[in-house]
């Protein structure tokens, strides 16, 4: 495993742990999601330098576009949750319990 690979893998794992263990705020989960996408962006951007190919040089841009769409959707859901549940804490999302 090259140092580059290790670096973005550990960044991803940290973000994933943050997303899996988020406790209070909706926004912190969205931030961890953005962190995941950022680590993947760095990985794809370093691909060209690491492997000396120009094959997949446009991949980071497309990833950025999709991650921006996803972040927008997440923020819209944050606003919708605040409108219906009066706050964006994750403990208040308890209407659908089994």
């Amino acid at each position, binding site marked *: 495993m090259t140092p580059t690979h290790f670096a973005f893998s550990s960044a991803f794992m940290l973000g*994933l742990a943050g997303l899996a263990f988020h406790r209070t705020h909706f926004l912190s989960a969205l931030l961890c999601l953005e962190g995941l996408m950022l680590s993947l962006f760095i990985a794809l951007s370093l691909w060209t330098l690491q492997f000396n190919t120009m094959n997949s040089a446009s991949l980071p841009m497309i990833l950025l576009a999709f991650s921006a769409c996803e972040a927008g*959707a997440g923020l819209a859901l944050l606003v919708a949750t605040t409108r219906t549940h009066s706050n964006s804490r994750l403990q208040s999302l308890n209407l659908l319990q089994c």
Partner: protein
Amino acid sequence: MTPLIYSTLIISLGIGTTLTFASTHWYLAWMGIEINTLAIIPLMTQSHSPRATEATTKYFFAQATASATLLFAATSNAFFTGSWDILQTNNPLTYTLMTLALAMKIGLAPLHSWMPEVMQGLTLLTGLILSTWQKLAPFCLIYQIQPHSPNLFMALGLLSIVAGGWGGFNQVQLRKILAYSSIAHLGWMVLILSFSPPLTLVAFSTYLMMTFSLFYSFMMTKTTHINSLSTSWAKIPTLTALTPLILLSLGGLPPLTGFLPKWMILQELTKQDLALVAVLAALFSLFSLYFYLRLSYTMTLTMPPNNPAGTLPWRLNPSHNTLPP
């Protein structure tokens, strides 16, 4: 929702799945899955009720996490092997991570906890799209991953059959029951994947047809709870006679179609010297059969407002005197 936006979202759903089906590059497959996720989110929050918003939030988090993990596994695989080809996922770490990410996408145990709650908050039509169409794209990718050992898929499959059966035991909400039945059926499909992929496709196509029929019959009678199911016999009597057939087919009873994939899967498992796994899978799908039978019992065999448990046989020697003296 205006027809233009509605048709844009439906077409985007179609484009996403088609993109994943047509791709050999992991990145394009990931893009198709992302398009699917983004397109169904407005469809879920259509009614703007608190339950719908909460269901959409939980769905968004589960799917976004799984998508990011899938792309990370694909990127790791590309760093290890130098290839973005879907059929060349050779590294054990990466295909394990990919399998787990795709399992979270479609709702296999132990990553299934978002599924019943999300299904509960949606309308029946959106729930139908969620449990049939949204499973196609990740399933196409699961089908193409070539694992070296069948252990992970068997573990996921067996756990899903157990979780789908056991979880639906005490449910009265029909959408949660349908979610648990979906988890159990996906477990059957994934169980046999590493031994005989055509059987997985047989199980998947029969599951699609049966789930579509069941959702549609619930949509026609507009029932979402066992109580309203029990009084729905007067709305469409023919449907009341036919829905037990669909339910028993989902439960896997011969001579209905739902028996076919289960039979072939059990046969293939015994051929591979895995008789214990076959026995466990068959025994745990009895739990699912229990709640399908309960649905067909309350729908067809009882006429409300009689309490179904109260229609017991007459006791000739009563233990208490219930009449006043």
